[in-house]
Every structure is written in C-alpha cells, then in structure tokens.
C-alpha cells in the first residue's frame, strides 16, 4: 500500500500530516481497535448459531425436494433437526440480548452516540457514498474514495436489515415453538402469519444478508479479500485504518481520543494459531457461501419458471 501521506494528498482529503506523529508517539501500539473482545465473541456465536439454524431449517422449508430429504436424513431426522434448531435459536437470542444490553450501555455512557458521529443511523453522507459507488459501478467515474466514519453505508444497511430480520425470526420462531401459548393471547391466524414470515424471513436472511451482503463485503470485495481480519484479530494496522475510515480517524485525532483505541497487535504466535483456526472457519464459510449462492440461484430460477 502507498504511504499514508501520499494517499491522503492524492484523494484531497483535508488531513493534517498527523498519522506519522500518532504512529510513533504510541510506540508498539500500532493497531486500531476496531472490535472489542465482546463484539468478536458475539459475532462468533451469531455466526455459529446462524449456520446451524440455516442447516436445520432450510430442509424443512424445501421438504418436497430430494436434496432436502437426503440432508435431513444425514442430520438425523426432523426431531433431531428441531432440537438443534431450537438450541441454536437460544444461542442467538442470548447474543441478541447481550447486544441490546451493550447498546443501552453505550447509549447511556456516551451522549449523542446514537445520532452523532460514528452513528449507525443512515446519514446524507451515506447517500453520497452510495451514489459515488454506483457511478463507479456503471463506469461514469473512477473509484471513489469513500468518506467513511465508523460504519460504511453497506454496513449500516446490513445492520438494520439483520436487526429487522432477527426480530421477525425471534418473534415468529417463538410463536411456532409454543403455538398453544401464543393462541392463549392471539388469534389462530397469527400462527399462519408466523409460518409465512419465518419461512420467507429465513430465505431473506440467508440470501440477502449473508450471500449478497455480508459475505461479499466482509470477504470478497477487493479491499478485504479473502477476509476482513479485524473481526477476529480485533484490530487492524493504523495505516490501513486511516485508508479505510478517514473521517473517523480525523475525528478521533481532533478529539484527542486516538490514543484510547490504539492497541498492540497480537503476538506472532497467537496470530499464527488464530490464523489457522480462522482459515478453517473461513474456508467453511466460503464453501457454504458457494453452496448458498447456488441455492439462491436455484430458488430464483424455480421462482421465475413458476410463472
């Protein structure tokens, strides 16, 4: 990668030549802490439970297909799959509760975090970023240098889509788990609604959030290929970070908060072990991604020929 200074000058970002100063001033703490250990563990458990939920739920959705019946036989039948599905659901619900607690904490502790800089709420800048990207996609302008604060527009989109999805899946899943209890308070047609939404929501979650969105932006886009290591290493080198999130960097320097988020990179031995473990997981994830891709194409094809 080119040096930070030239990068910054090339793209015309109004940045003082602060990076080098910060870089040397903090000694060995050369990495920017993108995710805390808590966030990384939550991500890990959501990844595992999501995969289990898909693998045990999808064969039931497509129960009339031969591949679904073969797969259901391999995982030990409907009864077993149901048990794994509910177990995984409890892991995911636990993660969601932990995250909600985390959000409440940071909202109380840091005033203005919800709307302020580094927000997860879509802003006008996100719209400008998206427009710049689309214009690059269609060949009307060169690759834009996105003015990213903490979260990019595609990360915000994924966050809100996943939040909506997980809410719907939790509520409808609970109704389908205890339909008799649900019917004590709600009319019976709600169970019908739950079936339709759990089934459709599952396909949306898998196809849109995972295949088209998350796997692409976290693994396959040019900047991160083959994967964004920040989610397991926790940090990324400051040079890369300045390049990726210029607005957040500038803001932190301005507020004098950069020192709070700098960490030493993990030791080389630990990195090696982590690399092995995470390459195995990433390999599995990429394999599943390929399977999901084929699956989504197949679903779309079947849907189109049904007309």
């Amino acid at each position, binding site marked *: 990668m080119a040096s930070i200074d030239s990068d910054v000058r090339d793209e015309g970002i109004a940045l003082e030549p602060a990076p080098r100063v910060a870089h040397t001033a903090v000694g060995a703490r050369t990495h920017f802490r993108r995710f805390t250990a808590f966030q990384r563990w939550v991500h890990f458990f959501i990844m595992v439970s999501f995969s289990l939920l898909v693998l045990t739920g999808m064969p039931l959705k497509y*129960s009339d297909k031969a591949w679904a019946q073969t797969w259901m036989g391999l995982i030990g*039948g409907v009864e077993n799959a149901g048990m794994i599905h509910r177990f995984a659901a409890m892991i995911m619900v636990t993660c969601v509760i932990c995250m909600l607690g985390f959000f409440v904490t940071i909202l109380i502790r840091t005033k203005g975090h919800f709307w302020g800089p580094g927000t997860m709420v879509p802003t006008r800048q996100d719209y400008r970023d998206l427009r710049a990207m689309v214009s690059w*996609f269609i060949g009307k302008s060169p690759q834009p240098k996105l003015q990213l604060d903490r979260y990019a527009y595609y990360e915000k989109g994924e966050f809100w889509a996943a939040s909506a999805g997980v809410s719907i899946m939790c509520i409808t899943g609970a109704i389908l788990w205890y339909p008799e209890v649900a019917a004590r308070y709600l009319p019976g047609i709600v169970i*019908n609604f739950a079936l339709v939404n759990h089934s459709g929501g599952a396909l949306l979650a898998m196809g849109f959030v995972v295949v088209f969105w998350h796997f692409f932006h976290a693994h396959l886009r040019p900047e991160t290929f083959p994967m964004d290591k920040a989610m397991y290493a926790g940090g990324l080198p400051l040079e890369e970070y300045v390049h990726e999130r210029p607005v957040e960097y500038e803001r932190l320097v301005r507020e004098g908060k950069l020192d709070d988020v700098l960490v030493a990179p993990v030791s080389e031995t630990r990195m090696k072990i982590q690399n092995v473990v995470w390459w195995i997981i990433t390999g599995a994830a990429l394999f599943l991604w390929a399977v999901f891709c084929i699956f989504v194409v197949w679903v779309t094809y079947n849907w189109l020929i049904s007309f």
Partner: protein
Amino acid sequence: MSSRHAILAALAAVCILLVAAAPAAAVTFTIPTGKTDRCLECHSKPDLGAIEVNGVKKTLTVDQDAWHASMHARMDCTSCHTGFEAREHTPEETKGWYQQAKLTACSDCHSAEFKMYDKSFHGNLVMNEGSEEAPACGDCHGSHGIVDPTTAEFRESIPAVCGRCHGEKSETYLDTYHGKSVRMGDMSRAVCVDCHGSHEILPKSDPDSAVSSQNVVATCGKCHDSANSKFASFMVHVDRSTPHSSLWVWLMEMNHAVLIAVLFTLGGLHCFLYFYRGLKEGLYRRG
C-alpha cells in the same frame, strides 16, 4: 362327585373355552381347500386382459407378490370373492359380485369398521346414493395388496391416498409443519386421519365431525394439551399462492416475494458490479 362326572365337567370346560376362543382365532383362520391355487391357475397369467369397473380398467391378473406381502396372504380368494366357481366366470357372477362386494366382501370380517363407514360421508355416498366416485373400502386400502394400517408404510401413504380425490387439501397439508415432518419421515406428526378420522369421516359442517366447530378443539387437544378455540382456528389448509384461500396470508407471501425479488436483485447487482470493477481495475492484485 364321581370321577366320570369330573371328566365330563373338564371336557365341557374345554369345549366352552374353545368356543369362546374361536372368534379370536378366526382372524387368521383359513380353510386349506386349495381353491386359491385353482384360481391362480388362470389369474397368474400376465395376458389375461382387463375388465372395466366404474370406468376404471382393472387387470384380471393378480399381482402375487403384493398379495403374498399383504395382510390377507393366508386368506382364500373366495373369502372375499364369494360366489365364484372354479371355472370361467359368467357375467352374472362377475356383475353380481361387484354389486355385492362393497356390501359384504369386507364387512363379513370387519363389521365394526364397516358400521362406522356406513354412517360416514363416504359410506353414505356409496351405500345410499350409489355414488361411483366416492371411495369404498378398497379405494383407500387397496385390494390384493392390503397393508397393515398400523404400519409406518401405511401411515406414510395416507396424504397421497386422500390426495387422490382431495388433491388441493393434501397439497396445503404438506405445506404445514405436520405435513413437512411426515414427508421427511417423522411419522409421529398428524396425518389426515388423525384430525378428520378415517372410517367415521364426516364433513366439517356436520356437528358429529371431528373437525366441526364443536369438536375441533378436542381434536387438536389429542396432541396439543392446552389447545383452545383460538389455537384451533389456525388454518391448516391455506393455499399461500392465491388470495382466495386467505387474503392476509397471501398478502404476506406476496410481500416476501416482492422483498426477495427486489433485495436479491439490488444486492446481487451491488456485489456483482463491485466485483467486476475490482477485477477489471486490478484491485484484487495487491502485495
């Protein structure tokens, strides 16, 4: 009491026991008359031809494998096909038997089931209204290849058997958790007859029906302990692909179809174009 009296009493007791036990033994009791072999002299030939019964062509060749595997493998042909003689059959014999068969062929042994069937919707159509479409015993159970109705094999076949006439209902059933589980081999879930009944089946509008508004909660309650009327108002037979079945369910289904179509297209385009530009501009070749 003299010893002679004691022997007589013992003999009498044995006789009474035998008489009392006879009905229980009768289920598998067959008379080894050899008639079956005589029937098969002709009816095992593959080129015997077919006859038409109620517009359905039926082969005169007996599928011996199915018959040997069936519940009735040890029965004599004439136990069901009463009145036939061991020679080329006259039209009177044949016609007469088909008219009598639905009355007596099964009910001689299975009278309890037949009584229930007689009072049912299907039974009424066949017995009283002379319907040729409504099912008699053999239409659901088969004839020569009758399977033990307590087996998983039979249970698994029920949605398809009912679906021969009630195709739409069978389709919508297979779209529910019950149906999906059964199709995937979990036979503990409800199939058609668990809710609707089998021999005694009646339409929903009949108060005695298992799925009438008076009885449906109790029917659900067979499996779902705390089922109430709201639970029972869950619509099992909803066709999600049409607004005529349930407008709200259809609207939700359409909502998902549109969401999926739009989001998959936009998301797919975003990924593909990003990937394409990345490849074209050499962004994947980094040190």
